[in-house]
């Protein structure tokens, strides 16, 4: 890997560079910035819900704005760009090419994100990350809503450009000696998720345009007063954003595929089943979008199809989990920070998946629809699996990026606090949903069970907040003053790092 910070350069050289590690570094820094911004909003939400009544936020409109921007930020401005950072660093090296296939396009895709982040944050829209119609069409205040729509539009274009770049780099630029069946699983994860993006994003791009023209009053696609149908928007949205769940989770699983064999000091148990599971997830991801809409009056046949389509994701997910377990079996596992995050992520992935299976049964979905169960389930996936996999990988790549080691003790404190906090917040929210508390509410009646569970969740969130403060200090301090890393073997594992192929990037 290139050691970016060991060779100080003027900042503009990195900013205007098209080299894949420079663009990767920009993605990395920006996504971490948005992680802390979005996380701060999460703390505000949890502080507000600590007790019934207004606590720190004065009105429900402000609360709606906060959770809208929280969700939009962490999904589109943290998780996706972080995955792009990892892909930029690793994919060209893993396929043994000098750079991404289209370096300028790569830089353009990155530079589209800061303006869209600015649009989302300066607008601070209030209609949820789903842009709920007909509210978003009829009465969501502008220009916030319009800025959100434009921000998402730009982010969509950026995602498509990035996806094309990854696909071409992996399929067309890999070393001639390397067959596609030899490309490491992390690169395979980017290939799978990029293909999903190419198929899924255009639908939402169309929906956003329709939403915008509806807001301008020149069309009425989703406006019931003009004969439109908000349910049509739900279909368009979820056709994109259920597969998007896999766009988010597949790279995180790919990162675990990089870490777990390394720290178990064994090759991955089954490389082919990993590929098969990635491809299967990419396909079945498109057969389950309407499970988000069981409560919208779909026919029984439709619901059955989508219920079974949802359950079809279980075998693929289970294959990954069993692959990880089999890899660790008989290994000599070193529990450095990246490994702890990965193993913790697998455990929480399993919990999140189990909740999803239960919830995919349509009669149960009616009971839990729009309750805190859904919030707990979704967040257990994005925080417990995707963020855990991503943060673990950040620790893994830290010595390669900075040339210095992070503080191991602080990394472990960060993990344990985050793990405990995540369980406290999101498992509790599942139960809270079963007790009937609706999601996206600013206030709630003083039911003792609701108050107790909200307080547990808020305490959990504060624990995560403390862990993130430790994390921030650790990465800032260690990148400047940390111990110099032995970049041949920073974790003291022995053996080669780029299984199954060495890093032989001619540019490095």
């Amino acid at each position, binding site marked *: 890997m290139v050691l970016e910070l060991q060779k100080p350069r003027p900042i503009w050289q990195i900013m205007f560079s098209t080299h894949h590690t420079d663009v990767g570094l920009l993605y990395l820094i920006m996504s971490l910035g948005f992680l802390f911004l979005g996380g701060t909003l999460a703390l505000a939400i949890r502080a507000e819900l600590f007790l019934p009544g207004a606590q720190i936020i004065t009105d429900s409109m402000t609360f709606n704005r906060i959770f809208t921007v929280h969700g939009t930020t962490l999904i589109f401005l943290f998780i996706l760009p972080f995955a792009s950072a990892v892909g930029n660093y690793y994919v060209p090296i893993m396929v043994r090419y000098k750079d991404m296939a289209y370096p300028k396009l790569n830089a353009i895709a990155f530079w589209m994100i800061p303006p869209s982040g600015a649009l989302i944050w300066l607008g601070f829209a209030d209609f949820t990350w789903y842009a709920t119609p007909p509210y978003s069409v009829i009465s969501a205040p502008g220009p916030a809503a319009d800025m959100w729509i434009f921000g998402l539009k730009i982010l969509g274009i950026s995602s498509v450009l990035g996806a094309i770049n990854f696909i071409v780099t992996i399929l067309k630029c890999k070393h001639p000696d390397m067959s596609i069946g030899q490309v490491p699983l992390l690169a395979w994860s980017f290939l799978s998720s990029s293909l999903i993006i190419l198929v899924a994003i255009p639908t939402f791009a169309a929906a956003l345009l329709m939403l915008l023209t509806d807001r301008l009053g020149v069309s009425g696609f989703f406006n019931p007063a003009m004969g439109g149908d908000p349910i049509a928007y739900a279909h368009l949205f979820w056709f994109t954003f259920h597969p998007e769940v896999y766009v988010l989770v597949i790279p995180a699983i790919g990162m675990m595929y990089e870490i777990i064999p390394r720290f*178990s*000091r*064994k*090759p991955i148990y089954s490389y082919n089943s990993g590929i098969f599971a990635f491809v299967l997830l990419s396909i079945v991801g498109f057969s389950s979008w309407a499970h988000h809409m069981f409560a919208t009056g779909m026919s*029984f046949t439709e*619901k*059955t199809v989508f*219920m*079974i389509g949802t*359950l079809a994701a279980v*075998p693929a997910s289970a294959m990954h*989990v069993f692959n990880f*377990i089999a890899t*660790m*079996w*008989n*290994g*000599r*596992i*070193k*529990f450095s920070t990246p490994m702890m995050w990965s*193993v913790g992520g*697998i*455990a929480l992935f*399993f*919990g999140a998946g*189990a*909740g999803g*299976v*239960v919830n995919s*049964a*349509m*009669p*149960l979905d*009616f*009971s839990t629809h729009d309750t805190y169960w859904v919030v707990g389930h979704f967040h257990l996936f994005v925080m417990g699996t995707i963020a855990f996999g991503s943060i673990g990988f950040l620790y893994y790549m830290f010595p390669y990026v900075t040339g210095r080691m992070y503080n191991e003790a602080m990394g472990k404190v960060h993990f344990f606090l985050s793990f405990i906090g995540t369980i406290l917040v999101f498992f509790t929210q599942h139960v809270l949903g079963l007790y009937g508390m609706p999601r996206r509410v600013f206030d709630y009646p003083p039911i003792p069970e609701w108050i107790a569970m909200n307080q547990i969740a808020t305490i959990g969130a504060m624990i995560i907040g403390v862990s993130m403060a430790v994390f921030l200090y650790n990465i800032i301090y260690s990148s400047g003053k940390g111990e110099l890393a032995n970049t041949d073997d920073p974790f003291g594992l*022995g*053996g*080669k790092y780029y*299984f*199954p192929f060495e890093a032989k990037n001619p540019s490095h």
Partner: protein
Amino acid sequence: MKGIVGLFLVLAVLVLVPAVESALAAGDEPGEYLDRRVVIWNLFFRMMTVMFTVGAVVSGTMIWLVWRFRESHPKAKPTAYEGTDW
């Protein structure tokens, strides 16, 4: 291997059949609300039983795995791949 396939088939049947059954049983007649609640919660508890059983097995395996194959375990020994090019 056959045992594992059999186990998953049983689990799949335990999840899918009651789900489809109860969805069919829900019907469209008014006045069936209470019955639906019973069916739904019955399904919920059955599925949770399956989930907790599988969850306990997988989580238990992982906890044991983490404890047994850590490098500081007295019985830990180098893997066949250490010091090689894999």
